[in-house]
């Protein structure tokens, strides 16, 4: 299923030139903020929880996910160069699978790793907060990458829709309508993190069985459907 050449090209598309700078700026910002907060307030579990939960997991992970997930396939479909890839004797689900692996790897590297470092800076992993949020970021990376990769194959405005989901649905509706939280990748990831780390601060509105089932269903279904979309892809001209 995994095709090294496709993977190499995708890595280049995602990280080549100055694009790695956009991806790299956010983690750097998170670590700078953590350092500033540590200097301002000292080690404080509640503050660490606020920064990691409010900024790292709620804002940074989804945005990295959007950039990596849609960036893995969107630009190629957009400029039509995907036909050169599709005309090669590689199975289309294999293309999607490879791109998914790359997107997951990039999202994890640019979100989970900095979250762990930031957690260590903030309170030295007191109450397992750093580990818990790192686990949440790792789990969320997989689901986000799959979801946004699908969006990339479905729509030309994948980035906008991805951002609307990440910023409006999860952040705004999630805080207003509690039902929306059941359908939020962030809450599913938190449920898993809660179980793994046993931290009392990291809690979720969704039970672990529901969260796990939904995570797996979303990831698998999104990947499968993205493969189907790619099989029947029609290339539209520029609008």
């Amino acid at each position, binding site marked *: 299923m995994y095709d090294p050449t496709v993977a190499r090209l995708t890595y280049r598309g995602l990280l080549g030139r100055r694009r790695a700078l*956009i991806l790299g700026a956010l983690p750097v910002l998170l670590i700078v903020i953590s350092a500033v907060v540590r200097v301002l307030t000292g080690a404080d579990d509640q503050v660490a929880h606020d920064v990691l939960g409010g900024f790292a997991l709620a804002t940074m992970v989804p945005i990295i996910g959007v950039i990596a997930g849609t960036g893995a396939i969107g630009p190629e479909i957009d400029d039509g160069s995907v036909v050169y890839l599709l005309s090669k004797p590689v199975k289309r689900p294999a293309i999607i699978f490879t791109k998914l692996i790359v997107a997951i790897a990039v999202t994890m590297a640019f979100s989970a790793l900095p979250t762990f470092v930031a957690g260590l800076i903030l309170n030295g992993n007191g109450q397992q907060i750093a580990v818990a949020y790192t686990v949440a970021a790792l789990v969320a990376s997989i689901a986000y990458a799959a979801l946004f990769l699908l969006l990339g194959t479905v729509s030309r405005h994948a980035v906008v829709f991805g951002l609307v989901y990440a910023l409006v649905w999860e952040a705004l509706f999630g805080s207003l309508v509690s039902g929306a939280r059941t359908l939020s990748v962030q809450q599913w990831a938190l449920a898993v993190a809660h179980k793994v780390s046993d931290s009392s601060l990291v809690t979720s509105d969704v039970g672990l069985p529901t969260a796990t089932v939904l995570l797996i269903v979303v990831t698998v279904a999104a990947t499968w459907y993205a493969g189907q979309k790619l099989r029947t892809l029609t290339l539209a001209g520029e609008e």
Partner: protein
Amino acid sequence: MAVEQPTAREAEQTRIHNIGYRSYDGPRLGRAYARRSLYSQSLRGAYGLGRSVKSKVLPMLLFVVMCVPALIMVAVAVATKAKELPIEYTRYAIIMQAVIGLYVASQAPQSVSRDLRFKTVPLYFSRPIETVDYVRAKYAALASAMFILTAAPLLVLYVGALLAKLDFGHQTKGFAEAVVSVALLSLLFSGISLVAAAATPRRGFGIAAVIAVLTISYGAVSTLQAIAHVHSGDTSVLVWMGLFSPITLIDGVQTAFLGASSSFPGAQGPSAAQGVVYLLVVLGLIAGSYGLLVRRYRKAGL
């Protein structure tokens, strides 16, 4: 004579036939006209006018989403015969900043990135316009589109307030102050977004870059402000942090000079002196992004 005859006939044969091409002697519309056309086309394009139906959906939807809360507020104010509108005029743009951010993030790249990707920029410069004209037209068009987006709900509020027979002088003052504030906001946001979008020919990355600059900086600043508010009594730290994100800059300026109440934690906005720094930073950013854009397009070969 007999010798010259063939050469004369040869000259006759190699004559260039006049097949009726005529040179253009009508009026030349010139540089200002080209600039004006580019401006109006870019402004129409920012709302999807003159483009496909699909590309009209998003800007129009965001415009509607921007105006609906204002309509609801007006309806409530009229129905309950309130003495005041539910919110201040200046507050509206701050509350709706997510919509404004999404709009500018989706339209700034469509305005400049496609010209870069399809390499049509050199074609513009083969017309009688210069780099400066292109940048000015694109900047002015996006700023106007943003101004329409942010001022329309204010107009709805204002007209609604007058219909509800609220105090005319007070409402007019609030409306005028808010219009100045959103004009500043439009210039600042479109400048920053165009610089970010012009850096990449790929639309997707452009959108992400603009959102990253606008939303992430706000998320970071407001998180830090909230923590500083709880943990240190020093309000000046909190106020200076506001300099690092576009929306808090606008918030600070309108708190200091335009009679708005601050949305900073604890409602501690900048004083007049700090407000001057805020205003200077805003104007500096606008001038700086204009300068960067001109520099970006100096090389016509991209």
